[in-house]
């Protein structure tokens, strides 16, 4: 048990739009006591000593507050799985074709599930360029990505709750590397940011919090994890596009600050919808007994926790 109780899944959001969309999509309309954590009223009515999920908001933006908030969530609820749910920048690159064109990548409103997290702001500025260094981080487990992420990539019905959608096609789901930084530059010509994106050439999204959460998981693994080994996933809706070169800026031809303004809410919703589908899948099976806690129940039907089921999870 955590300090406040036990929840099988903890969901961490950062900005108000992310929190609002997560609460709405997940039906998490009640606060648990006066803890600042929210869950569905049906979950509380069950009177179990275990909640299916809780939703929280980070104390602030950026990696430091996200680290603190993730640690607090882990300590307060001891969830099996932590989901970081919110928005990020999608990375677009110039391919080798002639004439030059942008390579395929996540579009505005799409969702990225992180397979690996890099921290781009830890390194050394040398005359020859930026030399990254490495931090111990815990990456999302491959098994969860394969078991839950891959079906969602193939079957996009999870996204059917989108609304006020600025785009002309529904969102799709991508899996790929994420690079975390301390501040995302509004200026697409920012040299440092371009250097980071060039170095992490497989990254498909950039955010400001995933490193903080990945580090909190490492701290738990290294310092706390005698009987408790939480895992995590990073769910990012793309609210704007960033590029790794001046050439790509020219090809993109759009202002990412304006994009972010237009897409912030929509991208937060698509991330929340993906999180809902993941949540339903994660809760569909019980948890077996554990040295520190008794077995935990499953909630195989979304309606049990007050959510309408995602289409691909239609109840039998």
């Amino acid at each position, binding site marked *: *048990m955590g300090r406040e109780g036990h929840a099988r899944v903890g969901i961490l959001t950062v900005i108000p739009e992310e929190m609002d969309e997560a609460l709405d999509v997940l039906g998490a309309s009640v606060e648990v006591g006066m803890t600042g954590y929210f869950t569905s009223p049906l979950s509380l009515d069950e009177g179990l000593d275990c909640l299916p999920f809780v939703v929280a908001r980070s104390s602030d933006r*950026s990696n430091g507050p996200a680290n603190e908030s993730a640690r607090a969530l882990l*300590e307060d609820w001891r969830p099996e799985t932590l989901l970081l749910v919110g928005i990020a920048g999608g990375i677009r690159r110039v391919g080798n074709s002639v004439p030059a064109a942008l390579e395929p990548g996540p579009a505005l409103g799409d969702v990225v599930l992180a397979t690996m997290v890099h921290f781009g702001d*830890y390194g*050394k500025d040398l005359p020859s360029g930026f030399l990254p260094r490495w931090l111990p981080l815990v990456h999302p487990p491959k098994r969860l990505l394969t078991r839950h992420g891959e079906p969602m990539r193939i079957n996009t019905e999870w996204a059917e709750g989108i609304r006020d959608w600025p785009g002309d096609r529904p969102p799709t789901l991508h899996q790929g590397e994420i690079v975390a930084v*301390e501040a995302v530059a509004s200026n697409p010509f920012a040299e440092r940011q371009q250097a980071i994106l060039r170095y992490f050439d497989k990254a498909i999204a950039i955010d400001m919090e995933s490193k903080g959460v990945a580090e909190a998981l490492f701290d738990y693994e290294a310092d706390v994890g*005698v009987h408790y080994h939480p895992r995590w996933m990073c769910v990012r809706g793309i609210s704007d596009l960033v590029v790794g070169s001046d050439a790509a800026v020219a090809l993109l031809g759009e202002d990412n600050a304006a994009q972010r303004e237009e897409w912030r809410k929509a991208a937060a919703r698509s991330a929340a919808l993906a999180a809902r589908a993941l949540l339903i899948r994660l809760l569909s099976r019980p948890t077996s007994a554990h040295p*520190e*806690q008794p077995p935990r129940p499953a909630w195989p039907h979304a309606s049990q926790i007050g959510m309408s089921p995602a289409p691909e999870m239609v109840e039998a």
Partner: protein
Amino acid sequence: MSDSRDFDYPLILCEDFDGILAREGPEASIEQFIDTTLRRGRLLLQAAGGAGKTRTLEKMAAAAIRANHRVSSVEVQKIARDALEADGVDALLRAAEPQLTYEELAGGDSLLLLVDGLSEASSDTAELVLRAVDEWAAMGPSTGTVVADRLTRRTVNPRRWQLATLGPVPRHVISRIVGRDVNDSETGLLESPVNLDIVANLPGEFLSSRSQAIERLTQRQNLSEVDWEGLENLALRVYRERGRRSIPIAWIHAAIGEQATATLGSAGMMTSLGADEITFRHHLVHDYLAAKAASRDSSGWGHELFDVLTLKSSSYDVLVMLLELVNQDQRDVLIRRVYDWNLYAASYLLSRDRSTHGSTDLTTESEILALLGERRFDHFLATRRQVDDALALHGGPLATSYQQASSVEEVVKLAQSTLPEDASYRAWLVVFACNVSPSPSWLVEQMQEIDGVDGWTAANVVRRLGVDSQGRLSIQALLDADSAVVRWRAVHALGVAGSPVLSDLFRALEEDESPSVRFGALRSLADQAYLAESVEMRLRIFRNLASHTGQILADPNLARELARVLHVDNAPDGWIDGVSIAIESILAVESDPRELEKWRRVGSSVRAGNLEMV
């Protein structure tokens, strides 16, 4: 010295350190303290020496056992710093009585861990203890840890830690216990449970100070005068040679013999720390004995002795007792010498003195408060906060006025309106209120004054007014002075002397034999970077500082100060870039993951303008 007597002093839950200083917050019962600790996982109980922290821990232990919680306790002084550094939580758990293991967490039973003695730990040891407690709380959500600590601002996360303090014993309780009405001065002394406990056992006596109370207590033991003097000298020797409060049994046997040692043990004045070491049951007794030894020779009052007595500024309570033990005509001398060593220690002495008998010379008090008032406008934010804390702790009307002043000019005006008839103060004011810029030569000369308050006043005013080339040369010459404190004042003033003195400051940082001068040089280099005429010069200074990273990290005081001076008011252009250079150079050489994380957080907090992590 503790018994079951309940002194009814309030237990106060505070939102932040300012609340602790002001003793502001909701009062709680001992049961609510326990519940809060178990709910939050970590409670930092901060109060002045003798305020009843150990007694409160004992009361919490008893109440927790009654409520069927498991209880374990830790004495910080039993944990070696190296063990804490290497093993973290493991070292904490090994020192717990009864010992704790990780496996016990699996049971999920509520467990209260009580950590006492942080007051006496050095700053870096205290940081390691708090970090270990933080991790322990994360490991065991069914555990709660209370850490008793002195009044000092710690870098704990207020979202995870509950802060708390203790209020004074109410006057009616004091009257009830001593069996008579008490006046204001006695209330100031007896609102401390430790003092009241002693007085309660000495019916009919009127005491004027804590040291007098402890003296009465020790006099009740059947030791000869020679034994007492031997014990006093031993207490000072232990501080000087061991830097801690544990005493090798062989040393105390050599000083006063086995019989007298046994007498103290059976009187409950000493506690065993294992087979080879013992300690005084309350650290204030050790402080009293060491202060008594130090009080005999005023010629020794200086930086070295103050470092020894306070365990390198870990606790100033021993200086309060030294102040109480010396004659009235020597008190002013002592405070001014303490000021020469540590501004904040001097203000602590003033605050404690004010809360009891108020014997300090008004001239000195007014001068020191004015000097504190000016430092509220320092461009280093950590200095401002420290000064605000010192003025809040003092709490007198003049201190409050300085806290409310909105500019240096207002501080000077306030100083000018104070003590209009005091000739000594008016003479000091000529220096403090000097407004001739650049600094006149007589002011620079004054920096060599033997008196700490006068000398530092001149150095501060020179820093305020700036210097011309002649003044600069005069101050540069002081860098070769025999007196370390004069060299310290010189590097302090050179912070505003521009690029021609940069090489002098770097040389002082590298080569001066005095830690205080090296410390002052680092601060002044940060001054120079802040005041640099161009971004290029600013970055050049930071790059040069970065080339000294190894030296700075090797000295905990310098490393701590570097983290503090990076946070400035109204950061000039290029400051953040300069900070990045300094931090990156540290990240490149530091290998401890926790230190790496700490410095990354310093960098983030500078960028965010958040002083919380320093």
